[in-house]
């Protein structure tokens, strides 16, 4: 029993289709190739703690490095990262070693988790993209941590300036902040629509939008997203499910996975994923008299946290807020095998959700899983359990 899609006058959403086309062409999307052909530089970034605005202000097209969002053969990834680093890092390395990211002029990562830092180490050693940078990302939110991160972002900017042979002026940074904040605001609007009893957009469709946002110029993305919001406001399509679900856990950007949940009637209304909510949730706020770099560094450290951060309660509280705001009936935790930060947090998160009466379905997955038969069976049972509780 899939989510019910009502579609009275059969309007397709053309912009959604455009976003999907971008994703189909990934990694070599038309947008990336066009930027390159005009002599522009394209940089890869690895994790949401890497401040994209700095790259954007330097005229660089930032592209998020991921695997193919689906499960893939990981021969090289397994050989170089061994089988016990998460399949996300192995997928990225696999693509890198196969030359599928050969268009990158730079690779920027943060010391966010073991998988990310080792992927960066090996990327630097074996793939040799012209520019490499890794930022020390503190795991705390203290004033001292903010000072350190500010210095790290400054140093990253200086390294980039040295590589490019030109300065990145503050006006450019302010402009980039505006472009990215605009993007965040539009994505927030999109998410707001999902608070409805029967939202006009599904979870799987939302993920297509987000995936495209990592793979095209932000200005174009913003224009398209505005078009999509326009189309959605006029559309009479609605999605109604058996239960309202939230997906939490490791990096995941496969719309097929969400689709496999929604195909059974579990409507995914929100999430805590670094590829979705955690990507856009907080804007950069430039306080009076503050430098743009300072404002950027503050936002990236304070943003909706990854499980790497300590204390974890900051993340848990944000999840609990989303559960309330989006009227979530159940949480699906999908943790990639060997994604240790999330694995450690799971018992604690489960307790906190239990306190507010929200059940958790914990899935151990590989990066890119599209939801196998076994997963579907478990989702099915989970939905039945939620329905039984509602009665």
């Amino acid at each position, binding site marked *: 029993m899939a989510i019910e899609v009502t579609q009275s006058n059969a309007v397709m959403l053309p912009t959604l289709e455009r976003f999907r086309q971008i994703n189909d062409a990934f990694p070599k999307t038309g947008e990336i190739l066009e930027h390159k052909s005009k002599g522009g530089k394209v940089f890869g970034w690895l994790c949401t703690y890497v401040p994209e605005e700095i790259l954007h202000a330097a005229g660089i097209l930032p592209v998020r490095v991921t695997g193919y969002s689906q499960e893939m053969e990981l021969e090289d990834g397994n050989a170089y990262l061994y*089988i016990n680093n998460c399949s996300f890092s192995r997928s990225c390395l696999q693509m890198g070693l196969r030359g599928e990211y050969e268009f990158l002029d730079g690779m920027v990562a943060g010391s966010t988790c073991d998988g990310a830092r080792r992927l960066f180490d*090996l990327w630097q050693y074996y793939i040799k993209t012209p520019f490499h940078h890794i930022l*020390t990302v503190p795991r705390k939110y203290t004033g001292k941590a903010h*000072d350190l991160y500010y210095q790290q972002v400054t140093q990253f900017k200086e390294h980039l300036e040295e590589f490019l042979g030109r300065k990145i002026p503050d006006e450019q940074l302010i402009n980039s902040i505006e472009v990215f904040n605009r993007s965040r605001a539009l994505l927030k609007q999109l998410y707001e629509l999902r608070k409805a009893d029967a939202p006009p957009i599904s979870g799987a469709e939302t993920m297509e939008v987000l995936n495209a946002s990592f793979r095209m110029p932000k200005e174009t993305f913003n224009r398209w997203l505005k078009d999509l919001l326009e189309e959605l406001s006029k559309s009479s399509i609605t999605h109604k499910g058996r239960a309202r679900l939230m997906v939490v856990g490791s990096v995941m950007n496969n719309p097929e996975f969400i689709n496999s949940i929604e195909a059974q009637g579990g409507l995914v209304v929100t999430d805590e994923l670094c590829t979705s909510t955690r990507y856009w949730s907080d804007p950069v706020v430039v306080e009076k008299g503050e430098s743009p770099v300072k404002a950027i560094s503050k936002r990236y450290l304070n943003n909706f946290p990854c499980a790497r951060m300590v204390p974890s309660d900051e993340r848990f509280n944000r999840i609990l807020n989303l559960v309330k705001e989006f009227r979530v009936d159940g949480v699906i935790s999908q943790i990639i095998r060997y994604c*240790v930060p999330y694995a*450690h947090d799971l018992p*604690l998160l489960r307790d906190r959700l239990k306190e507010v009466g929200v059940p958790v379905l914990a899935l151990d997955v590989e990066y890119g899983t599209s939801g196998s038969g076994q997963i579907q069976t478990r989702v099915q049972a989970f939905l039945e359990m939620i329905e039984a509780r509602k009665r």
Partner: protein
Amino acid sequence: MVSETKKSKIDAIIRASRLIMRMNQANPASPKSEALYYKMLTSYYTCLLNAHDEGKFIAAHTVFFPSEILYAMDIVPMHTETTTWMMALFLGEQAEILSAGAELGLVPEICSPHRGLAGAFSLGALPRPDAMLWSNLICDNTAKSGELIMEINKCPGFYLDHPFQRSETEDKYFLGELEDMICFLEEKSGQKMDWDKLSKIVQRMDHQMELFREIGELRKTVPSPFPNRGFLQLLTTDYLCPGQPEAIEYLEALRDELAEMVRERKGAVSPERFRLMTLFVPPMYLMGFLEKIGQEYGVVSVVEPLFTRWAEGRLDPSQPLESVARKAAMIPERRSMYGPLGQEALQDLVDCAEQYKVDGAVYWAFMGCRHTCATVKLFKDLLNEVDVPVLTIDCDIVDPTINSEAEIREKMEQFFELLEDR
């Protein structure tokens, strides 16, 4: 009643080490350092066992933690990984501890030593700490271990954040972290930092690092005087007793014994046929087996670049806190297990192979240690370039159900055959 059982578990370590100490003392052929090592263990765990009765504050902490600070504040440290697994080994309770961890909801992909910590606490096998301290040196597991343990023990905690790279700002940040931790501990324990005491500990720690380096130098000799089983003892010494008189006493005796053997051209195995580099740590419960197979085949581990190769540099007792921070950056594990894997760290590995006249290397690929396994291929590539073959053995370092002795023997014998054929 509950506290009685807790006591008896730690008591198992004390009884076992006291027994080994006495056996060593009674055996005239046994080197003096062996008894001293077990004396050190006995004293560390006796302190822990009696801490609460004596009204002392216990701080549990994860591996690679600057416990010098705890000693200087008269706080009793409890090294969680070492304590859990030493106890498990002596009592044969590995399985119980790991299943307790699983019951808490910790998945098998979490490194087994850390899965066991929370398990051991929830079983009440370890004394209840008054505070939990943990850090991201060395990995995501250490970084994420603390909060669940705090919750189980209903105790406060402090997370010590190690910056990933080295720079003036990052060093300053870490110093600030140490200061904040001292404030936290002063508040929770009601005890003040004794700076003079810290300064003395730093002075001894400086000497201790010299001793580690001297021992490392002596192991360059052919034949190497240092037995295979000594590796874990060296680690434990710094894990439990950094800058403590018992550690110095043990290491000085050990150094003198090794120097004597070098003068007499005596090796730990005779004849010495193959000199090995050990990468990562062999399964703890196989140390006896490794000693045996080493004797059988004339094989000796001469260097463990990830764990026993200390960086050059001195500590300054007049700047005790800065020195504690500096030491944290000088520990061998900091070179290639944490921080960016730069050219320097890679070159050092190759240098190691040459300086120690290594015939082959064994990489213990511990499935729980993701970040070290990520270097298996890279290190193999580098060592193969200088004609050092590498044997990789997938293993678990604390769970004896994963590997059998027979299986590891087969792999090692095959490797010795390969070395022989060359």
